[in-house]
């Protein structure tokens, strides 16, 4: 499938990549961390988390290895690859451009109203 340009999907990819920056993490932890960091504002549907993880893995942006979890169970740990790190930077820049652009538009909109 060609890479989707869907905003939401792209955003989820960005969040996952950012979450994995500190180190390898399994899927559950990724979900928990995103929820935690967003103060529960972003609830990741598991239905979309795993497809996203797999998609990133297929793209070669993250890598998956089996390892032992904190309670000693076999779990799949995801970590950023080199391409993933580069991709994250690119995505962050894109996000910055996009969000500042949106802010600009919204700012103008409020001026016009006022």
């Amino acid at each position, binding site marked *: *499938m060609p890479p989707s340009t869907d905003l939401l999907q792209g955003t989820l990819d960005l969040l996952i990549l950012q979450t994995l920056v500190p180190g390898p993490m*399994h*899927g*559950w932890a990724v*979900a928990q961390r995103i929820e935690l960091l967003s103060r529960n504002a972003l609830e990741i*549907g*598991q*239905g*979309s988390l*795993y*497809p996203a993880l*797999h*998609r990133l893995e*297929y*793209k*070669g942006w993250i890598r998956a290895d089996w390892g032992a*979890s904190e*309670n000693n*169970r*076999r*779990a*799949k740990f995801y970590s950023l690859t080199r*391409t993933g790190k580069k991709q994250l930077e690119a995505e962050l820049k894109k996000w910055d451009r996009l969000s500042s652009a949106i802010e600009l538009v919204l700012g103008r909109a409020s001026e016009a109203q006022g």
Partner: protein
Amino acid sequence: MIAEFFTRLRFLFTRRKPADLDEELAFHIEQSTQRNIAAGISPEEARRQAIVEFGAVERAREQCHEQRPGWWMGTVAQDVRYALRGLRRNPVFTIAVLATLTLGIGSTTAVFSVVDRILFRPLPYAHNDRLVSVGLTAPIIPEEFMLGGSYYVWRDSQKPFEAFTSETGVSPCDLTERNPARLSCASVEASFLPTLGVAPILGRNFLLDEDRPSGPKVALISYALWQSHYARDPGVVNRLIDIDGNQVRVVGVLPKDFEMPALEAADVLMPQALDEAVQRKADPGRVMYAFARLKPGIGAAQAQAMLDPVFQYSLSLAPAPFRKEVHLRVRSIRDRQTHDLRLAAWILLGAVLAVLSIACANVASLLMARAAARERELAVRTVLGASRARLIRQALTETLLLAGAGAVLGCIFAEILLRAFIALAPVGIPFLLMAHLDARIVGFTLLLSLVCGMLFGVLPALERPRAAALTARFRSSGAHAWLRRCLVAGQIAVSMVLLTGAALLLRSFRNLEEQKMGMETRGVLAAHISLPRSRYNTPQKQIDFFLRAEAALKRMPGAESVAVSDSLPPGGDHSENIFNNIAVAGRPRPASGTGGMVARRWITPAYFNTLGVPIVRGHNFTESGRGSAENSVILSSLLASRLFGKQDPVDQKLQLEPDGPWFTVLGIAADVKNAGLSGDDEPEYYLLTRNVADHWAAHSVLAVKTSLAPAAVEPWIRAQIAQIDPTIPFEIETLSQSVGRLADRPRFETALLTFFALCGLSLALIGLYGVIAFLAAQRTQEIGVRMALGATRVQILRLIAAEGVRLISIGAVVGLAAALALAQLLKSLLFNVDAHDPASFAAVTLLLAVVALAATLIPARAAMKVEPVQALRYE
């Protein structure tokens, strides 16, 4: 990007264990459960909440699968498998569609391959759209020609052409070296090849010096001759070869695809070497054929107008009485080559496109019926989560499969059909031997089948299945049923048109075959002998040969009668005279017009007996007359009545040429068909071939009448001739064979059109049957109710059949109207049949009505046999 590509590629080929994903998802739920337990919830409740929180596990699993690169390829394979299974489950449908596509695509491709050569292929000359054939037309020569007396004036003072050139025809010649062969030699002007834009692949074109009466003898040889006789040796250039006993220097080799503009076979091109000064003064001068290259921006019609001054000059040279019948003609070379084939080619193409449209309508109709029957299946699949795109893709896969298989089968069928065409076709149809399936035509086929597939396969899938389709009660698709009815009526109309065309041609062909020839054709063998000029170079040698052959054949057992003649009817290849050249003693020669052409035949006295032509008045020539110096003539009844009306022509005196000798009319022979099978009979006169040099030519026909089987006599004739000269090649055939050959082309045209008409009819019948059966099946329940309420079986039959009858009558009326309008196009192909021949139209209507009714009654009878109880319980 590249790294990403390789990662994807790696994942494409490494398969993941499904267990891994299961374990990963289970781990996730486990973690959630642990957290819930830690929050103080009972273990069961904790697990329940974790599962609820996760959502649809199966969906997540599927979505993970779908992320895999190459996943969609797997679904294509799945679609293909599914489609194949569906097609296998429904063999009748599959076979019907494939047969229809094969027939439609195959015949279209085959016919397109043939007509492509005639109508569309580029000619092997540079910028061939600017090349034209220019000349005068007169009754004496059917194609446009020029005469030496005016050609040079035209060439020097014409305005519309960049280049103007001529040829003086093709004649047989002999290669007289160690590997002798009979060839055809064309005589052309030095400017011939440059005007056509053809360059020799080896050597050079003729020089101006070589195109003079006493210039050096040179020749250009064809690629085929170069290949067969000189093993493609480049050293052939500048070599001396022997043609008709003369040493001729080869100056070049023609390209492989070279052909003469009038399509005569030519192995050798030689300079025509005419003496310009002599020709300019000559009246009328040598017959020539002129070709020219138009200046850019000038069309043939414009050129014709611009040539008027020179045309007026040529008219002034023509004998005053004939001027009215001389015209100017400028037309493209393609027109000159194909004028009489064109109509037949277009009609054939039209017929086959009609068959294709019937086939397409059938496929559409079948696919629509299938879609209607599958509406419920589609609805179920939608409910189970198949997306619209997926359903459309599925439909597309299925139709593309069908179309692809149809195209392959169609190509095979086309190849078979093409070979059959070539095997059946008469020799006289040019281009047919060159026809073959090439890449362009295969592409055309693929495109055709894809368009057919797309159009009709995807349309039904675009419609959202209605929820109502899920309830078993409802099964109909009104809009499609209406469209299908229209298609069927259209099919019937088109077959009607095809059938009338075929019927008219059939009737015309029968008229052609059954007409009276005016002579005996069975049991007459004809040997056409053309003596090589190099060895038989004096008239005396030619006379000696033919007299010896005649005597030898007369002695042969089984030969009842042997005649020698310069030509034989009914073909039109005899010599001719102009009617108004003939003067009757004591009457002035007619002053205006040509009066048309008169056939002239040089014969021996046995001719009439051999061919079974009765002498209706007066006497035949006598054997003793062959040695005398008397000038006598025998007229055909037609010529006698045109010259003398009711007067008795016997013993009258005629002058056959202005200032020629006077001939005495000896007798009147019955009329014989003498201008081909479909041409109007020409008046004819017979002259006695006496034993003097100028009565004989290198070409003569020996006709032998025998009561034995012709096949047995033929080798005897060959043996007799071989005894005189074993090196002379010649053809022997019975007169009925040569008559049959004249009918080859109409037979071929008739057979093809009939074949396509029957194809179209059977396809239309399948379509009609399908629609009626489908409608009847849909109304099973209604029929049950009607019968339960007291309808009789006959009423049910009438109910269903009425539908068919309506379609048939609409189709037939529309078809009849169209056929009446289109029949005019066939007019020039018809012989003794009116284009609106009522018998043909009536017969076709009757035939169509009967078979179409039969196709309706079969499903209608099945509907009639429905058991009401079962019909109601069903569902």
